[in-house]
């Protein structure tokens, strides 16, 4: 069985749906849920900020730290000499779960990657080749790779998509979000056939209102069903697990170096609300691990060991223990 890591790309064509927040925090939940590998090695996840706006990076690094990461950010992965070194040479480690040993490494984003949009075709081809080499090394070194992207078909977004084999699309439940995703599936599916397989796509409803009254839940359910009815081919991709609206998730972008949402220190009166957010991320994270295991279960040669063992690990612990750091 190969050790090649699967790569998830967080991508939609609509901004403000929560790509970056989910890419960071659901990945953290996945790290907490990851099984220990049979060979005793720790599970490693690589988080790559493939958005030139660097929002994901700003969650973890202060402006000073970002400045200091100039020689180790994503731009270097497109450099023919630096790419050979692979990700182990230029990452930071924003998180390690002390219980299961799972580690999240970050490749910081780079404003300079914007220059590839206007580069000559020759320069773009050269950069693509370097990035492919870099990703081959990353797949061998890590168990899972996660890209955060920009909501438009930039050079960087297309490179992230080309390097991935699974798509996660956060949506706020409206027709535009699903239409944007349908567009990706239809148009980019011509280039990357895996995008036409509903098992390789997970749509995560985000910013869902917590309806406490029956009537509100009924209205919410009716609205969702009406939207889904227009996209029947996406039904098998839409997760039942969801992220609810929460003050903890608002306006985090722009506040630099805040880290993961669940690590915030809160007053005792807000603890239950934060636990609700934690529970949502865990539910989506667990569901994503299962979806990955299902998506690749018939492709034993490409199956990654961590993904293959996830079902065994979840037997008996679902709803129970998550490896707390």
């Amino acid at each position, binding site marked *: 069985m190969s050790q090649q890591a699967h790569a998830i790309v967080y991508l939609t064509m609509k901004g403000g749906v929560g790509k970056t927040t989910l890419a960071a925090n659901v990945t953290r939940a996945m790290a907490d849920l990851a099984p220990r590998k049979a060979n005793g090695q720790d599970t490693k996840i690589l988080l790559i900020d493939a958005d030139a706006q660097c929002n994901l990076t700003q969650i973890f690094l202060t402006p000073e730290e970002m400045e200091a990461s100039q020689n180790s950010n994503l731009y270097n992965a497109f450099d023919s000499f630096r790419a050979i070194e692979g990700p182990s040479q230029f990452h930071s480690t924003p998180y390690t779960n002390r219980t299961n040993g799972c580690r999240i490494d970050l490749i910081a984003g780079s404003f300079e990657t914007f220059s590839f949009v206007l580069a000559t075709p020759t320069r773009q081809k050269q950069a693509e080749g370097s990035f492919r080499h870099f990703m081959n090394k990353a797949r061998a070194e890590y168990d899972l790779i996660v890209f955060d992207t920009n909501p438009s078909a930039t050079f960087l977004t297309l490179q992230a998509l080309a390097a991935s084999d699974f798509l996660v699309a956060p949506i706020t439940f409206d027709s535009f979000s699903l239409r944007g995703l349908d567009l990706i599936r239809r148009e980019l599916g011509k280039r990357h056939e895996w995008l036409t397989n509903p098992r390789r796509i997970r749509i995560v409803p985000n910013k869902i209102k917590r309806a406490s009254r029956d009537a509100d839940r009924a209205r919410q359910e009716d609205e969702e069903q009406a939207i889904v009815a227009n996209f029947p081919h996406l039904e*098998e991709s839409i997760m039942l697990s969801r992220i609810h609206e929460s003050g903890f998730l608002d306006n985090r972008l722009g506040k630099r170096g805040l880290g993961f949402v669940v690590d915030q220190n809160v007053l005792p009166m807000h603890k239950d609300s934060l636990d609700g957010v934690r529970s949502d991320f865990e539910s989506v994270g667990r569901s994503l691990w299962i979806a990955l295991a299902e998506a690749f279960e018939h492709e034993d040669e490409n199956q990654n060991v961590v993904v293959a063992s996830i079902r065994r690990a979840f037997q008996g612990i679902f709803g129970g223990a998550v490896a707390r750091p």
Partner: protein
Amino acid sequence: VGLWRDLSELQRVEFDALLDELYRKPTSTKRAAHAKPSQPKDDRPVTRIAHQLRERSSLADDIAMAKLTEALIARGVRREFIPNPTSKTLEAWLTSLIAQVSETRVMVAAKQIKN
């Protein structure tokens, strides 16, 4: 005339009982048709799938487990990933199930089950 004949044969007590019964019944089928189906008590995946099976497909728990098992196998899910339904509540069984089979796949299969 027919109605008068029927009514005139009734005793006063029987007539009052009939009136009471008429008052209690919904006045039209329209109101029944507009009644909202019950909603799951929260939006967690297990609650929503259980609600789909119990309320929308009107299945008893043991039948729901058996039919969902059949439906999942028909959709290509390997038997080894479906937990044994022995004496568990539907919710407990579904909790174990979605730790092995993706919740979306389970819901799509549940929606296709007819009582």
